């Protein structure tokens, strides 16, 4: 998607530019920042991450599998001890717990990858290595007729550089 990218040196200017862009609805935004800033999160107003659903489903699948494999094995290959249950849920809780953690954590990572769209196999034309160092960037995928408005807005908010990204 073509659009405009603006570089910012300061956090507060980036935040004010984001708010203004959201208000004027010039296009979808992608914000680049060297680290996590709550100010940016608040300005972007993104919905909650769905990663938590992957965590929940993965954890439930893991714990179910852990108990199941232990109980199924005991029934399939019984080690009979007088007065003892063949499948005993208390020791199997350890297997259930470990599998819950293992599968739950790996599905969390899977959920993060899916939602963040990584690994990224294509070049991000808007990205500048400065964004991993100390600068901030805003990419807006606005149509050509709105580019002038976006450029003016970026400059008004103190962008150090505005360029086209295609």
């Amino acid at each position, binding site marked *: 998607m073509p659009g405009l990218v603006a570089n910012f040196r*300061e956090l*507060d200017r980036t935040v004010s530019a984001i708010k203004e862009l959201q208000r004027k609805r010039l296009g979808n935004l992608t914000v680049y920042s060297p680290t996590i800033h709550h100010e940016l999160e608040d300005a972007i107003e993104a919905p909650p991450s769905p990663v938590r659903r992957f965590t929940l489903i993965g954890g439930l699948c893991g714990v179910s599998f852990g108990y199941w494999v232990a109980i199924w094995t005991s029934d399939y*290959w019984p080690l009979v001890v007088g007065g003892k249950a063949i499948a005993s849920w208390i020791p199997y809780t350890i297997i259930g717990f470990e599998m819950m953690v293992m599968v739950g954590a*790996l599905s969390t990572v899977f959920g993060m*990858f899916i939602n963040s769209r990584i690994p990224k196999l294509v070049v991000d034309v808007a990205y500048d*290595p400065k*964004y991993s*160092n*100390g600068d901030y960037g805003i990419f807006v995928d606005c149509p050509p007729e709105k580019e002038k408005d976006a450029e003016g807005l970026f400059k008004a908010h103190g962008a150090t550089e505005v360029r086209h990204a295609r």
Partner: protein
Amino acid sequence: MATMAEPVGPMRPNIPSADIQLPAIKDFEQVDNEIANTLKPTKAWFLGLMVAVGCMLIGASAWTFQVYAGLGNAGYVPPVMWGVYIITFVFWVGIGHAGTLISAILYLFRAGFRTTIYRASEAMTVFAVMTAGLFPIIHIGRPWKFFWLIPYPNWRLLWPNFKSPLVWDVFAISTYLTISTTFLYIGLIPDIAVIRDREKNPTRKLILSILSLGWKNTDREWRHFTRAYLFLAAFSTPLVLSVHSVVSFDFAMALTPGWHATIFPPYFVAGAIFSGFAMVWTILIPIRKWWKLEHYVTLNHLDATAKVVLFTSLVVGCAYLVEFWVAWYSGVKPEQEYFWNRVFGEWWWSAWIMLICNMVLPLSLFSQKLRRNTAWLFILSIFINIGMWFERFVIVVPSLSHEFEPWQWTTYVPSWIDMSFLIGSFGWFFMWFLLFIKQLPVMAIIEVKEIVPARRAAAGQGGHH
């Protein structure tokens, strides 16, 4: 404002606020430059790596010989069929505890002092668990049969016994290794991207691009990253506490005197945190000194970790004393014999090494002056690690050699193969750790940047530009 290396007053450092601020660090560029500087190899690093590889080769040679000549060459004398291998296994699992504790539990508790120390601790965890995982495989004598412990469909219709603590161990250790590695790697992704963007060598840049998965610092990536990191921390927290509990079940589930105690899980977990933090000092104190990172890992941070060590030392010391009390109060003769034998019997010296290193010397940390003395913390960390290895020796050897039947009582002398494995384990661990610190950032660049005030145009809002 005082710098992080200097307390606000002579006796009362401003820990609640100072440990979450790094005033000696002015901006993001400084963070990138100073942490990336640790990636440049030095002569001391090469020397350290050579020593580590040399020690590792001693262990590898011993393993080759053992595979060829058989397990009979280890120092086992029935009924002492657990020796240096299992002692060293438990020791390294314990070392592996502090990393995830620092990165996960302290993250959930928002403990500021974790920020600059957690990456090295996490890496330490991964390599310590990798080291620990070798020992059960070495111990079974026929390492090529190890996969029999894993439950998988097979034509022999053989399945492991899920009521056995040894099978719990397989699940606990493999889960811990997987999750610790995942946690380390996920936290590293944005930092690898920073290193990738600074890299000039095209081959290294390509490798770093692959490892960073094309990370671009977008708001979408950060949003899902922070959630995933939080959930991983939430999963890792009970995992940390469970792993050494499960390892303690290897002992506590047996009827052997000195082992069959309900106190074992909390006692093992506290001991693991204690030894893990000591190993964090062993590796971090030289790193901060050699790469001049005293303004990152500050005296306030070390002071906070020293308090954790002091607290866990008191818990461990209390557990040692409670064990004696329980043996006396139980009225069980073999139990009482064992504990008498522990301190006055054949291995009295090992018990006293344990008690002095783990109970007595850490009491020095009541002194704030010593908590802020890096030379003393480094020396103490060595003593604690020696003491914690001997703790496991005291649990394993005197118990097995002095069980219920006097005719079974025997002695145990580790063979040269046992000691070669012990040396090899340190070589293996430090080899991986030294390779790690030369390839990837030893401190979390992204999290340090979270502490450093961002540039702001508005006056008086903490900007440095």
